[in-house]
């Protein structure tokens, strides 16, 4: 997806605010499981949102639309 969703597709729990922390911690070398547990993401519907997301907005962000 282009940008991380605000809410979990399945249960509607708010997850958008936790994405940045998740990415930064995983980049530091921590395991995804550990970070998700720390963030209190319990259900596997929400956990797959984090694990499977590919942030594509950086590929697009330097191209402005003509208005």
């Amino acid at each position, binding site marked *: 997806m282009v*940008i991380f969703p605000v809410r979990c597709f399945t249960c*509607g729990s708010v997850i*958008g*605010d936790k994405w940045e922390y998740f990415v930064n911690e995983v980049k530091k070398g921590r395991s995804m499981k550990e970070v998700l547990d720390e963030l209190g993401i319990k259900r596997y519907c929400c956990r797959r949102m984090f694990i499977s997301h590919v942030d594509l907005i950086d590929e697009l962000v*330097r*191209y402005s639309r003509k*208005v």
Partner: protein
Amino acid sequence: MGKFAVEVIEKDEKTVKLKFKGVPLQILNALRRAALEYVPTMAVDLVVFRDNTSVLHDEIIAHRLGLIPLKSDEALNKYKSPEECVDVKPEESLDCYAHLTLEASTGPDEVKDIYSGDLKPVTDPKVRPAYDRIPIVRLGPRQSIALDAYARLGRGVEHIKWSPATISTVTYLAQINVDVSKCNLCGKCVEVCPREALAIEGNVLKTYEDRCIICRQCVRVCPTEAIDVTHKEDEYILTIESSGALRPERIVFEALKIVASKLDMLLSRLELIVKAEVRG
């Protein structure tokens, strides 16, 4: 209805877990559904774009804004109900709509994230995003965004963005019956239990019913048919997880009020019909 009891099992900022004894399942289910569908909250419903040169389309940004939970604890008493606001123009009414605004732009070499915290209240400082760090859009160099968002009260039946609860469940409580005369302490049930609800301690099979999820694996595996798992007849657990718009206990109170008022409405309608029949 006879005696009933409520016990708070768990409560924090986001969730509340209540154990009910003596309350019929049907009433708890009505409560559960009211929490999801009928308790009103504030959410952005109309977005007017003045400028948007970001890579995300207006519609996507408007959708993301709608999904951001707004603090609604005070707003519930202040704003008119969704039914009263049907024909009201968002720019004109302070009783129906709260106005929020978002303005941001970037310099020649700048890439910047715009967060829900940048969405600023204009008319009502109490209606503001419940979370400040939800990314809305990432702006590239020389891009800008400017918009006016109008939030109103709404209900989960209309769109899920207004639902104050993300999780609302009623579950059974397990009852594990062990026939001590048949049990030979083989330990097969302990091995197969996914939730460690069973344990052999000393010379008895000990049960932890609050951990049990009633999967009945132990019943299937027991060679002497000594164990049986059912649920308690009269006890249920109601779990509500808040989206952040309302405090979880507030959701329960509001849901209860709504169920009660619906029942009152039903009663008064029925009385009208009965009276009409008597007269006719």
